[in-house]
């Protein structure tokens, strides 16, 4: 038990911090820190800066162009990047497809796709959920029927994040309808520009359009786009669930939003006094600090423990708590905005809006709060996470 990190880790943090502070473009940082909407160009520009440094895919091994970092290093990277105002890595190509290809892809697939993902030349969307297959993913019905060297894919995918600006989509499709639900599923990559594909953005409660429906009408997909064995796509899906033990808690995001709350509490006045001088705000601020500290210590503790010593429920517990704490901070920020949350103008979510009615820092907080409600729903709802954790935690 030791508070101080090793000299190597200290040095690593300093290196990441120096790079982050020097490298995030001002306009992107401002958009991110203010909670404005970011577009494909913003993300691409930033990820390409990271790629030039060799840091665009923190979780990838060295041999595939990643930095080969330990879980602790990845946590520190996430922390320092967010505190420097750098947008998180939301790319499904980097976070999901890359690791799946590295684990299950052919040499040809790795050579063909990984470099373009690393350099963010291709944007990938995730196509897992369907209208009738949400938490119960194994009940998905999108069909892929073999036809010569191709599959003919027909069905509908839902909640595909960033699908509207993606080039391709990786999906789970049913290839054997006769098999048990989880057995007849395959992992397939689909070109979103192919004939028969239609992407329809879905407007969400925060006014954004990051979520999409993807309609697939007899789309011809080469067999070469199959990842892993036929009918064995569930293995890839399960693998994805176990990947992110480290950054799943979103500690960097919690700290960054807490800092935002602290600054806004000092800058925003109620009854002539800064909010932080009001006991009710000061107390909630302090209690949120306790929550974030407990979350961070727990992530560091679970990270250090080797897999055998844990109950196996760690990733689920961190996901549940990390999202709860972040949502609590966003809810607090909404209270900090107070009446400034009421005017609803899409312009207020973009740089350069100079409507004096509401302070620019406060205007996005209602949308940010509404957007934060997704945290306990995506990546396996917190209820599904509790089901998973219960299996490990309930022991005689």
């Amino acid at each position, binding site marked *: 038990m030791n508070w101080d990190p090793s000299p190597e880790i200290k040095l690593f943090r300093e290196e990441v911090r120096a790079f982050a502070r020097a490298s995030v473009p001002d306009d992107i940082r401002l958009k991110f820190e203010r909670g404005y909407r970011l577009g494909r160009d913003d993300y691409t520009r930033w990820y390409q800066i990271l790629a030039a440094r060799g840091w665009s895919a923190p979780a990838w091994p060295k041999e595939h162009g990643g930095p080969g970092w330990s879980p602790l290093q990845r946590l520190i990277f996430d922390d320092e990047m967010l505190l420097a105002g750098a947008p998180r890595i939301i790319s499904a190509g980097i976070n999901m497809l890359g690791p799946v290809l590295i684990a299950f892809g052919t040499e040809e697939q790795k050579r063909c796709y990984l470099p373009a993902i690393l350099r963010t030349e291709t944007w990938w969307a995730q196509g897992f959920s369907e209208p009738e297959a949400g938490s119960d993913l194994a009940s998905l019905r999108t069909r892929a029927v073999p036809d010569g060297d191709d599959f003919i894919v027909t069905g509908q995918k839902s909640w595909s994040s960033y699908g509207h600006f993606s080039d391709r989509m990786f999906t789970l499709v049913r290839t054997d309808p006769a098999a048990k639900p989880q057995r007849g599923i395959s992992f397939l990559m689909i070109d979103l520009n192919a004939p028969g594909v239609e992407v329809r953005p879905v407007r969400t409660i925060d006014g954004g359009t990051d979520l999409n429906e993807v309609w697939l009408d007899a789309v011809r997909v080469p067999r070469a786009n199959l990842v892993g064995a036929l009918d064995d796509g569930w293995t890839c899906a399960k693998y994805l669930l176990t990947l992110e033990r480290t950054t799943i808690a979103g500690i960097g995001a919690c700290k960054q939003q807490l800092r935002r709350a602290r600054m806004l509490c000092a800058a925003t006045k109620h009854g002539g006094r800064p909010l932080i001088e009001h006991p009710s705000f000061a107390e909630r601020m302090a209690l949120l600090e*306790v929550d974030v500290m407990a979350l961070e210590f727990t992530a560091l503790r679970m990270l250090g423990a080797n897999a055998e010593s844990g109950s196996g429920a760690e990733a689920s517990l961190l996901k549940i708590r990390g999202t709860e704490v972040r949502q609590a901070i966003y809810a607090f920020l909404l209270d900090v905005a107070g009446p400034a949350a009421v005017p609803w103008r899409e312009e207020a979510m973009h740089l350069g809006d100079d409507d004096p009615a509401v302070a620019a820092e406060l205007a996005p907080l209602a949308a940010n709060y509404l957007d934060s409600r997704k945290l306990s729903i995506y990546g396996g709802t917190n209820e599904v996470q509790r089901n998973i954790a219960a299996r490990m935690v309930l022991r005689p």
Partner: protein
Amino acid sequence: MNFELTEEQVLLADTVERALLAAAGSRTGVDGEWDAIVALGLPGLLVDEAAGGAGLGAAETFLVMEALGHAGSRAPFLSRIVLPCAFLHALDPAAPLLGRIASGEATVVTGGLDPADAPLSCSDAGVRLFGTLLIPDGCEADTLLLIDREGARAFLLEMSSHGVATAEIERLDGGALTRVALNGASGELIAQGDPVIHAADAALMLGNAALCAEAAGIMRALVDKTSAYLVHRRQFGTNLSSFQVLQHRLVDMRLHQELSRSMAAGAAMAVDAGSASSPARVVAAAKIQLCLAGRRIAEEAIQLHGAIGMTDELDVGRYAKRLLVIEQTLGNRFHHLDRLMAESEICDAAKASERACR
């Protein structure tokens, strides 16, 4: 931060746990547990090796206290070892009394350290003491280490000396409080001024970190017991653990127990690391976390046990009551919330608004 234990620390935790288990088996109660603690040389845990102790710190205190908490022990390790040793060590690591505590010759308890203690009054150039104190586990102590925070003075006095009247009071958790009435008792002034304030802060910090560790051990026991109960208890023709509503509540108990354990360990590490880790801030945050999670877990443990959880026979209630006492010892969560707000950056409004304008 590195939460992993060294081999020696693993050994220490195992040894203490086994010894407490054996003591519990022998049905000798608190005395048996205390004998086990003495037999393991734990009274010297915080005393320098040169003075006959083990020269260890907050991390090892965390391990011992966590084990005591888990075992549901009422052995007075905090009041007789952690607090007096932390205070005396901060004053002078070579103080002869430390060696005597380590060897078991001296039994010392502290008074006046807890923020809830009423202030003392003194006369005759400060050697005649007046006041009333409630001291945990004071009955068998031979020496009282009195800290007069307002006057920044520390005294030693014999419990048997003239002007000291003691009475035993039962504690909420079944332990013992000693009501000590000082009526002109004469004490030996051992320190005054800043060193006393510094030593009191050090003792309060280590003491609170130790209480957090004990609470973390108790919470682990409560969650384990509740988990086992849900698995074994059958109703409606099935195990209670098959009901999702109960599964989710147990997962939340486990979650808050894990958060609490991390905070208790983090507080111990911060105390060991010293000022660079802002230990005052971490310890205050840890105490708040442990108080809030302690209530939550104890209440859930009682609820999920159903009516049997309300019985005095089941040890869930004993653990719950110990958590309530821990809450109120060395500053409750309101006290620590005030401290945290004072320590935290959040009050540094100037700095925050400067950042906001960047």
